[in-house]
Structure formats: structure tokens, C-alpha cells
């Protein structure tokens, strides 16, 4: 089975779907006031890009994401190292961190709005809190999972505790840490765009809300497609970055 066949089939089905929708809407079977025809949506793409300052919005969202990303890396890795270093703390707190990972942090956005105001900080902080647990947990997992034999190699060379950590444990844990950061970045993006939409502030997420409030239906659909595209590209980029950073494994 060639690689081309199935992929082409998938794309073909997608195109057929859009063609089908176009036909149904043009014929009036589906109201164009509820679902704009794909042709109109495509046209509004251009309009949205020109008029809505897509470039600036994209940068706003990206900077929010990256800020959250830097914060989760710093605090997440430090947190993971801390839990590794102090076993008692790890035993006490690890399940709480896991519970936080399962908690719907974004639902507390009204609370964050009260504390930080209706601005970028709310967005960044929610992204930070939601994305922090996977980084901590993966860092801890990586450090704990260092193969005993590698530790013994270090001891056989009489490394000090600090050398042991920086030359052996930490490099050995890096693959797991990168996985954690990747997961964190993805959570961060999801939450950042989501909160932008909810509080109607920021970059791309706000764009959708804006267009929806103006009842610009094709524009809203176009903006949603655009945000999905950005999200998918971001996801792919983060995956590529992670694979580049850890070539082995």
C-alpha cells in the first residue's frame, strides 16, 4: 500500500465534503444564514487578513503563549527538580500536582479576571497554571527514571553531588523534560486562545469573538479556520522542535 493512496483519499474526501456543503447551501437546503457557503468563507479569508490586523493579533497570541511557555519551563523544571531533591515533599505533593493537571483551571477565569484585570496577564496566568503540572511531573519522572547503572558510573568517578546532578541526572532526564515542555506548550496555547475568546481580549481568540458579535458569519467561520490553522501549525512546530532537540530515542 503506497503512502500516497490513503492520504490522497483523505484529502479527496475533505474536498468532496466542502463541495457537497457548497451544493447544499447553494440549493437552499441549508440556510446560508446559519452556514455560509465555503466559497464565501474563502473570500472572507482575504478580507479578514487585510482588515483585521492578523499579523498583530498573531504576534499578541504568540507572545502570550511564549511568556507562559518560559514561565512553565522555569518554574516547572525547578519544581520537578525540587520534588526530586526532597523526597518527603514529593511524596506529600505529587498527587496534588497530578490532581491540578486534571482540574479544569480555565473555568476559574472569572477569578483570574478579578485578580489581574481583563488583560493579557489573566490570559498568561491561566495558561501558566494549566500548563505547569505536566512540566513538573515529566521533569520528576525523567529524574527518577535515570538508569541506576548511569548513576553508578558517576559514583565510580567520585563525582560530587552537584556534578552528579548536572552531568548525569539532568542530561538523562532531558528527553522526558522536553516531552513535558511540549505538552505544556500545547496546553498553554489551548488555554490562551480559549481565554482570549472568553474575555474578548488579546489576539486571535478575540478576533473570533469580535466577528461573531458583528454577526459577520463568513468572517467568523474564516477566523475559526484561521485559528485552527495556526493551532495545527504551532502543534507541528512544537513536535518538530522536540524531535530536533532529542535526536536519539
Amino acid at each position, binding site marked *: 500500500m503506497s503512502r500516497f493512496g*490513503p492520504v490522497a483519499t483523505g484529502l479527496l474526501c475533505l474536498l468532496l465534503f466542502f463541495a457537497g456543503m457548497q451544493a447544499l447551501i447553494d440549493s437552499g437546503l441549508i440556510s446560508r444564514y446559519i452556514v455560509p457557503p465555503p466559497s464565501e468563507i474563502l473570500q472572507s479569508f482575504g478580507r479578514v487578513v487585510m482588515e483585521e490586523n492578523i499579523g498583530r493579533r498573531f504576534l499578541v497570541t504568540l507572545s502570550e503563549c511564549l511568556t507562559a511557555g518560559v514561565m512553565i519551563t522555569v518554574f516547572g523544571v525547578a519544581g520537578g527538580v525540587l520534588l526530586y531533591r526532597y523526597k*518527603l515533599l514529593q511524596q506529600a505533593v505529587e498527587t496534588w500536582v497530578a490532581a491540578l493537571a*486534571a482540574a479544569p483551571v*480555565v473555568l476559574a477565569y472569572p477569578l483570574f479576571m478579578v*485578580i489581574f484585570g481583563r488583560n493579557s496577564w489573566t490570559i498568561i496566568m491561566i495558561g501558566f497554571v494549566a500548563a505547569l503540572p505536566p512540566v513538573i511531573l515529566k521533569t520528576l519522572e525523567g529524574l527518577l527514571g535515570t538508569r541506576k547503572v548511569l548513576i553508578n558510573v558517576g559514583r565510580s568517578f567520585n563525582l560530587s553531588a552537584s556534578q552528579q546532578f548536572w552531568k548525569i541526572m539532568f542530561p538523562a532526564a532531558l528527553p522526558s523534560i522536553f516531552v513535558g515542555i511540549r505538552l505544556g506548550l500545547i496546553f498553554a496555547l489551548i488555554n490562551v486562545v*480559549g481565554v482570549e475568546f*472568553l474575555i474578548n481580549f488579546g489576539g486571535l*481568540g478575540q478576533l473570533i469573538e469580535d466577528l461573531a458579535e458583528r454577526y459577520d458569519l463568513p468572517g467568523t467561520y474564516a477566523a475559526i479556520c484561521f485559528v485552527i490553522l495556526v493551532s495545527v501549525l504551532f502543534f507541528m512546530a512544537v513536535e518538530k522542535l522536540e524531535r530536533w532537540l532529542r535526536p536519539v530515542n
Partner: protein
Amino acid sequence: MAQTGQLTKASERAPAVSPVTLLRIAIVLGVLAIWEFLAHSGWLYRDVVPSLVAIGRALGVLLSNPDYWFNLGVTLYEIACALAIGGISGVVVGLILGGNRFLARAFEAYLYYLGPTPKIIFFPVMIMWFGVGSGSKIALGTLSCFFPVALSVAAGMRQVDRVLVRVGKSFRANTLQMIWKIYLPAMRHPIVNGIRLGLGVALIGTLLAETKLSNKGIGFLIINAYSTFDMPRMYANLIVLFVLAIGANALVGRLGGLNTLKG
């Protein structure tokens, strides 16, 4: 002889409360103390950090108010519907993609890359299609929940140990028996994890939709507390919500038998 007697006595005097528990209690108490201090310090704007007493009172008022239980019921109903529709369709699609290599190569990438997008952005469209009532909330929850379930089931199916399938075939099990007695049990971990994840995102999707546009449900209560700046009530709502969310997640994990010997 007397010495061993002494040793036994020493170990019998070991602390009944483990140091881990002590540390946990210490942390919780510490956080609560700092909280209460901040509440009374006047440093932060008015009610941003209400006193614990105020929060406690609000909790009491909340839980004894039949109105709250009505709204909780609405939300639970919406989440249940979303989980049912999204979950079942996710399992079916996952089984199809997991079982057929061609279809998987053709379509699974779309699910994989669409999965980690924030579904809340679809809400304006959901409102157009399903109205401003529970329908749009359920739709958003379903959309959120479908992806992780489908992807987990598809991946789980591919990870089924091939020899177990051959065992079933060697005993001439029919298709239904293969699915029920071999594939599904072999996939119970990925399925349970998929449902856990699906429940988590269905909950988020449904509740966020309620905060955005609704006049019922827990999400509505939260945004309502925000708009009236009734902070103790908001905190009370959030506390109950988070307890329920984390509890439900743990319950699903436990029911799915993830920690048992059966592997």
C-alpha cells in the same frame, strides 16, 4: 534477651501518623494561614481574597440553596449527554480507525491535529446551529470529548497484543465474540484513559459555554457571581466545581480498575 525486648519496644513506639501526612497538613494549614492574613491585611482590593469565614458561609448558603442543585442538575445533564454522544461516537470511530490501516492513514491525522485546538472557539457556530439553550452546550461538550476518545481507542486497538487476536481466531470466535471478549478487554486501559480525558474536556467545554452565554448551569452561576462581584460566592462555586471535577476523574480511574492486579 533483655536487649531484644528493648528493641521491640522501640519499634512499637513508631509514630502512628506518617511524616508525609504531617507535611501535607502543615502545607494546607500554612496556605490557609497566609490566605486569612491576606484577607484581613487590606493590601488587595476589597474582596479579591475574602476571609475563610466568608467563604465558608457562602459555601453553606450555596449548598443549602435548592436553586444551586437545580443548576448543578442542568450542568450534569449537559455533561452526561455530551459524554454519551461524544464518547460513543468516539469509540466507534476509534474502533474503525484502529482496525483498518487504510482509513487510519487517510483520516486519523485530521483527528490528531484537530485534537489540541481550543473547541470553545466553535461556540458562536454552535449557537447558530443549536440555539442558546442546552443544545449548544451539549454540542460543544460533544465536540470536545470526541477527539481524545477516538484517538485513545484507535491507538489502543493498534496496541492490542497480536497473539491474543490469534488465540481468539484459533478457537474460531465469531466477530462479536472477538470484539467483546478479546478486543475490548485488551483495550480497557486506553479506553478508560480516553473516557477520563473525554470527561475532563467535556466538562470544560460545557462549562465554558455556560459562562459565555447561558442563564442556567454552574458556569452561569460562576459568571453571575463575577458580574455582581460576589467573591465569596464565586469562590464557593469554584471550590465545589473543582472538588467534583477531580473526584469524578479519580472515580472513573478507580472504576476502570486501573490500579488492580489485572494489569
